[in-house]
């Protein structure tokens, strides 16, 4: 968490054109902006360009930052808009199939219903497991993806996420919920217990 007073100080120095202040800002915020961009764009090279674009336009437009949100939220908004612009420009094939409509209520009803196994800490270090989790994020519809990344992975509060994405807090909550249910569904075949072990639960 960046604290308010030091952020105000940093902003003043950036406005005054102090390069070291820009460096501080990049050091603090670029890792998170990069992770957001990476998960929105899918391609590393595109993500890198989104990060560059974000800081370029942030520093150029720093006078437009009104301090109503914190700096991080403002940067996320710029990054999100830059990413969306690129995706739109890249053409419809970059926008996921389910994008047109909000996912239907029916899609909420879980189907895969096996109990899940415990996953030891070292399992998560495995590239294969990480890749599966990242792939599941990439397969989310774009609207759910942005909310999930900001809320669950970047731990941005509901109000900050709402303001960065230009949606209401209720929509953030609904989308987060749907994203989680979809990810659960998507990951179930991978993390569920094999049928014979799960069978014990049914007492037969």
């Amino acid at each position, binding site marked *: 968490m960046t604290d308010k007073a030091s952020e105000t100080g940093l902003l003043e120095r950036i406005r005054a054109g102090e*390069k*070291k202040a*820009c*460096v501080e800002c*990049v050091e603090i915020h*670029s*890792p998170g902006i*990069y*992770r957001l961009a*990476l998960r929105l764009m899918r391609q*590393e090279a595109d993500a*890198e360009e989104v*990060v*560059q674009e974000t*800081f*370029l336009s942030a*520093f150029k437009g720093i006078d437009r930052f009104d301090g109503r949100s914190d700096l991080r939220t403002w940067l996320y908004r710029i990054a999100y808009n830059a990413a969306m612009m690129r995706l739109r420009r890249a053409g419809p094939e970059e926008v996921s199939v389910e994008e047109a409509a909000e996912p239907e209520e029916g899609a*909420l*009803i*879980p189907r895969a*219903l*096996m*109990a*899940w196994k415990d*996953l030891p*800490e070292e399992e*998560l*270090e495995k590239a294969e497991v*990480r890749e599966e*989790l*990242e792939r599941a994020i990439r397969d989310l519809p774009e609207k759910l993806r942005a909310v999930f990344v900001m809320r*669950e*992975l970047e731990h941005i509060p509901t109000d900050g996420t709402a303001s960065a994405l230009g949606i209401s807090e209720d929509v953030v909550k609904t989308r*987060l*919920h749907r994203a*989680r*249910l979809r*990810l*659960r569904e998507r*990951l*179930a075949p991978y*993390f*569920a217990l094999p049928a014979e072990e799960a069978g014990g*639960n049914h007492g037969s």
Partner: protein
Amino acid sequence: MDHESCRTLLEGVSLFAEGEAPPELCAEIERHMAGCEHCRIVVDSLRRTIDLYHRLPQPAMPEKAREKLYKSLDLTEYMK
């Protein structure tokens, strides 16, 4: 499996899994879960899903990308 009550439960299950559901909703969900294995599995695996993502190691920006970023911002001389 497709009970009306399962559907209702599902709406609140995200809050419940985070421990943020209001007490009345919690009680309702717990009561339902006691008699519904389907929903017990859903809640448990949803919790595990959230937990997995909280534990997922975060990808870091490659050094090359960092260099390019500093260059594009004309900050290369300050790069550590």
